[in-house]
């Protein structure tokens, strides 16, 4: 019996493969051994090194709808767009939020708040109960002795002592543009870390097959074709707005985090690709949703119709996002929602100052615009 067993591949781990035994003559054996050694070596394929859940780099936003590229964004030039959070006030306190108008099919829906009519992807959320709001889980296993310092920042795309959350769909522009079915809301699947290495899992497919994490799984319907086991939704909905991961995201003052030199965006994974998102947190569901619907609960956002423009020294028409908006709740408060019903109001004399609380606004001077926007506030942990 002759075992043509050696297949040396000096790239990566040494590899030995056992193939089927072959009955041979001794003369053949010696010749075949030489041939197998030669061709075995020749058969090395560097792409075989990329097995498992390896990083495939950053998501290419080439097919992202414009709102997800940021201001000035160009899908052919990742990083050319910019997202800037704006200032608002909630009961006299300054808050930041990012106003994102509804787009595509959701914007045209008769009830854009009804999630039951929308196709929502899953979002795998690592250890949400054990992790501060707005942060990545630290319950994974970090490399021995890992320290997140300047050198680690230079070397590593993401912190290697955290695990990014995992997405299952990207924003995709429709053809013709403007009718995208993408909605920046995910159905949360909670994942509990057990002994998984940090940032090791980068896709739904990988995650479902792992035994070093814990999650509830849903097998595909019997007889279905092309469907795979997925995670079981927890019942919560999250506003996770996927954006061009290369885009610059700024706090309202135009500044960045002093340590990371990044804004309030977060980073996660989609299909082994690194992606960035604006985390709006949990979307509350309206308790009185009509039967057959799952309506997102909103909070109110008010903007003054006239504001004082200090640069021109004049009163100018106001609009949403000019820095004078009023919100009902801050993130973390009961009643917070990253979905806002937009109202305008007639301010007092803008030359004398501006309102910083809805309570200061005369209810009779409030007008419902009928518009709904996403209004995610960054978590306290993001700055």
């Amino acid at each position, binding site marked *: 019996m002759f075992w043509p067993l050696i297949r040396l591949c000096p790239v990566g781990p040494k590899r030995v493969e056992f193939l089927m035994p072959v009955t041979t003559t001794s003369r053949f054996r010696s010749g075949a051994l030489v041939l197998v050694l030669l061709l075995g070596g*020749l058969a090395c394929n560097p792409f075989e090194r990329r097995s498992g859940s390896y990083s495939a780099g950053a998501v290419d936003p080439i097919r992202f709808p414009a709102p997800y590229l940021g201001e000035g964004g160009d899908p052919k030039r990742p990083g050319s767009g910019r997202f800037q959070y704006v200032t608002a006030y909630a009961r006299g306190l300054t808050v930041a939020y990012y106003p994102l108008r509804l787009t595509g099919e959701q914007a045209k829906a008769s009830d854009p708040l009804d999630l039951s009519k929308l196709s929502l992807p899953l979002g795998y959320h690592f250890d949400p109960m054990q992790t501060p709001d707005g942060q990545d889980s630290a319950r994974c296993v970090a490399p021995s002795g890992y320290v997140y310092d300047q050198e680690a920042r230079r070397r590593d795309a993401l912190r290697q002592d955290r695990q990014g959350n995992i997405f299952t769909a990207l924003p995709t522009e429709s053809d013709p543009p403007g009718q995208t079915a993408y909605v920046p809301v995910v159905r949360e699947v909670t994942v509990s870390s057990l002994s998984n290495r940090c940032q090791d899992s980068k896709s739904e497919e990988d995650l479902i097959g792992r035994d070093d994490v814990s999650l509830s799984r849903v097998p595909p319907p019997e007889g279905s074709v092309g469907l795979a086991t997925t995670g079981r939704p927890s019942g919560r909905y999250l506003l996770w707005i996927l954006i061009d991961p290369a885009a610059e995201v700024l706090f309202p003052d135009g500044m960045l985090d002093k340590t990371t030199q990044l804004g309030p965006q977060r980073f996660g994974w989609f299909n082994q690709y690194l992606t960035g998102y604006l985390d709006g947190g949990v979307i509350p569901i309206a308790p009185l949703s009509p039967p057959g619907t799952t309506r997102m609960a909103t909070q109110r956002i008010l903007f003054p119709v006239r504001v004082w423009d200090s640069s021109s020294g004049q009163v100018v028409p106001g609009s949403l996002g000019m820095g004078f908006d009023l919100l009902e709740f801050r993130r973390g408060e009961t009643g917070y929602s990253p979905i806002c019903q937009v109202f305008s109001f007639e301010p007092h004399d803008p030359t004398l100052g501006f309102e910083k609380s809805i309570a200061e606004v005369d209810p009779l001077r409030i007008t419902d615009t009928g518009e709904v926007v996403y209004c995610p506030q960054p978590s306290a942990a993001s700055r």
Partner: protein
Amino acid sequence: MRRALSLWFVPLAVVVPLSASAVGEQDGRLYGVVTDKASSAPLPGARITVSSKRLIGGPRRVLTDEDGSYQVGSLPPGSYDVELSYEGARPLRRKVVIRQGESFPLSIAWSIEELSESTKVIVEERKMTRPDTTQTGTVLSADQQARIATSRRYQDIVQQVAGVSGGGNPNIKGAMDSHNRYLVDGLDITDPVTNTFSANINFDSVESIEVMTGGAEAQYNSLGGTINLVTTAGSNEWKINASQFVNHQALSVGQQFGTQVYQGSRPFLRIARPPQSTYQTTVNVGGPIVKNKLWVNLSFEYLRRESSQPIGPTLGVQSPSLLSDRFLTRLKLTYSPSAKHRLTLSVSADPASFQNINQDNLRLGVAEDYQRQGGVFSIVQWDYFHSEKVNTNLQVGFQYSTVDVGPQGYFGSVDSSSYRGMGRFSAANDIYDPDRPQHYNGDDGTYWYQGGSVTFDKRYTFQFDPSVSVRGKWLGRHEAKFGIQSRVIYHSFDQSVPGGSSYSDIGGGPGERGLCLPEIGQTQGCNLRTDSPAFSNAQVGFSVGAFAQDRWQITSFLRINPGFRFDYGRTQNSLGQEVSSLFGFGPRIGVLLDLTQDGKTLFTAYYGRSNEVLSLLAAAYADITPTSTTLRWDADKKDFVPLRTSGGAEGFKLDPRGNTPHTDEVTLSLRREILENSVASVDYTYKKVSNIWDSIEVNQIWDPTGTRVIDHVDGISRQIFQYSRPDENWRTYHGIDFIFESRPRQEWDLALAYTLSFLYGPGAEQFAQVSGSQALGQYYNPRMTLFYDGFLPEDRRHNLKLRASYSYKGFLAGAFLNFQSGAPRTKRFFNQNEGDYTNRRSPSGTDPGQNPNDVSAIAEVRTPSVLTTDLRIAYDLYSLLQKVHLQISADLFNVFNLDAPTEIEVRDVPSYGQVRARQQPLRLQLGIQLSY
């Protein structure tokens, strides 16, 4: 023997000052055993006389030892008469061809019958199994090359050898084009900075080229291959050789093809055929100044070449022609005052100039570049034949070379005739303005108004290589060689940027209208501007190496060739800082089995390590430069604001750690003489080049996607490059060569080689991030590192080569066919920070496919396969003219007029995947050669 060894080791041990990388074998040798045919008993005392027109000092004579063995070394390549004589008997004669660097086994079993014959002349013999060495590769002789159509450049004909691919600086068995060593008459002319060839030689003055692709013995130290030229020496007869070769676009079918890979010729396109001509004139004179004592050979070549790319994307304008003028002069003196001494002096000069060198359809004449280069090199060799068992060789050489590059308008005149007055471009493109900065338009990859930097680059090399060869017996026969190889190199460099700045524009659209020209209110394309002051620097380095190599014949069927070498090299920059101080130990072990014990069937196994201890390239980069400032356009301020700096005294770091760059090689070879003067072989090569030099950017902190620089390690917005030899910078080659070489009769020459190879790894280049390459390497942006692993650009999976020629009564027909499968390419994406297409989204040799963000869509990208077939038809009028050979030749290149793309657009621009260059079309070259 032992006494002889000790005698020679003492002075060698004292001399050790200095290691070049190779003492090139310029001669061959003859060896064998004379036995009695009937009894197989050795015949001692038989006289072997070797004579040739190539052998200065007259015939060489040796006596067979007590075991009947003999050996004659230091035989210049060529045809020899070997005479075996025994006192009282009539001599026996054989005719053999000795090849450069090879040993010819000539064992003779003598019988009474043969003794009774007056003489016995046998047809010229060529032994090609190389029964005493593990070295792979072959020898290309002037005689062979005269039988086929070639470009008449020594750099190009190397492509005929199995395992060799690439261009003028070839890739030999997976190594980089900067990993070879080039030797001319023993002088290492490898460029001390770029490690490429540094000199041109008159093609007709080359006697032979040994192309060593692997299995190198200890006197060679090359990470890739060794290209070892021997030039023609004089002889005892005066000879003159002159030739004129001409080709012209009128002798070409022209090249008018579509831009897509699948498109062929455009039959309805009516454009003028782009200029394409070469005029090559050579004269060689050689003969005796004093017969058998002093020979001279003098050669001269003038080459005038004009070529240009046909009109194509992106500018669609006929680019000005590349015009080159080259003057090659060479003198070789050979002096033999006695049978024990041979002195050789070689002097060469190769000044040349090149106008409009880019030829890429991405720039007008005003933005073209110019290059002038050349230098002089000389080597003196002294061979001392102390005895039949000991001879020495001393080589002392010097080389000076210069390369000056800059805008065409800076050095010469600008050709704007193809576009002036068209109205498509502004008047700024008509006249060269030395103070106008260059603009690069990232939207379409075009360059405007100005060429590149003005650089003046000078290199000096001094070489001192003594060696001794010793033959003796101890547990078998030994032929040992010991030597010292030393090299001192110096490099000076001056650079200035015309206009002081260069612009990298994007977003304004293609062409001139997309440029950033604030002076006329055109700012849509404004992105980056880099201000670079002029500077000068100089570096110096030296290396010393010692080697010992033995060829130990243990039994008639078993040889072991053990060897080793030690190398040390040090380089220093302008600041006096030690950039590298590297030591390398290179063991070599070869085992040769003569399977049929007749020298006709050889199996060899080899392992060897070569170390690169001396490279001025790292020192040239890790040196003082001025601080360049890159500014970004601020649309609000309508002005450029500082973005980062690079260069300056703190712009680089040295890394004293890291292993010496080295190659580990395993070669297995099976060779068999299957016909008379014919050999078939199968060679397997595993080669890993490790610790390749590179520059690592260590200060910039990129955003997680690798698109924007968001911070700096030291808090200062600047680039810092650390010069190092990372363990992760490697490349691996597996290749198997199937080779058949034959010269069964004088009329025939045949060589067939097929190579199946795989080349992969992250080590695609050296120093790309500081050399200005658009394809930055794995150490510039850590977010991109993961993509720098895959099949390398030089990975040619299949390579088939056929060289065949036949001559009969003055008529000659020869052909060379070369099939290469496609080369991997990698799609590059725009990087906001660089203002250029430097990012990747998939591994080396791939693009992300049609469905981004899906790893299963990633697809391999290769240029199409290329087949070239060149043909020579010639007739020698010797039979009519008598005494004078007058050969008229017609060379047809690309006989089948194939138009396979050789380069495609790899940037993420609208023309991605389109053809940027194709095979040269069918063309005819006419030649006339006179020799007397």
